């Protein structure tokens, strides 16, 4: 069984300040982990993915995430928020036996204040 918990439904930051979106997961197998972003009225876009190669993963638009097995966490960070980062962010876990077994988190809405 696998699950993913996004600890915050809403996060609000000022433009230019750091972003932290928290994600904890549970998986019976070695998981693949992903972060997706959804802008209003758009589909989901892949930000980054972890597949056991390196624990610190760099993604698009300056985002990165660190896989911490001991804490079962995969938090998403960005050093400096931009107005265009305002969106919904989804943490996703998939066990590596087959990609079809995918579980989405409930999403974190990021608000960026000018």
């Amino acid at each position: 069984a696998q699950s993913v918990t996004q600890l915050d439904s809403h996060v609000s930051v000022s433009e230019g300040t750091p972003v932290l979106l928290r994600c904890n997961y549970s998986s019976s197998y070695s998981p693949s982990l992903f972060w997706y972003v959804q802008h209003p009225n758009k589909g989901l876009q892949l930000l980054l993915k972890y597949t056991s190669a390196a624990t610190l993963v760099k993604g698009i638009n300056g985002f990165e995430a660190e896989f911490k097995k001991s804490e079962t966490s995969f938090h998403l960070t960005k050093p400096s928020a931009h107005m265009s980062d305002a969106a919904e962010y989804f943490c996703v876990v998939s066990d590596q036996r087959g990609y079809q077994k995918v579980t989405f988190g409930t999403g974190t809405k990021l608000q960026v204040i000018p």
Partner: protein
Amino acid sequence: DTAVSQTPKYLVTQMGNDKSIKCEQNLGHDTMYWYKQDSKKFLKIMFSYNNKELIINETVPNRFSPKSPDKAHLNLHINSLELGDSAVYFCASSSRQPDNSPLHFGNGTRLTVT
């Protein structure tokens, strides 16, 4: 040159009607999916097809019937629409291998049943 395209973007219809949503991908992927996103942004998988074969069929009313005429297309037909069917429906595709291949999403179809 859109990767995953679905039509229509908006669909407003009355209860009891039958409607279809079409999806096409030009990424050469062998697996396609339908997801339902409710008003709270929660994403739930409905169906998955690999090479035109149904491989995931979650607990979805049998009023929903997917059809995959070929690897590049996965359509969703809904009979006897109900108010609770109102949601945003996303088509997605991926490669079966490697196992950690990310999902590529369409921009969604917003279905409103009145």
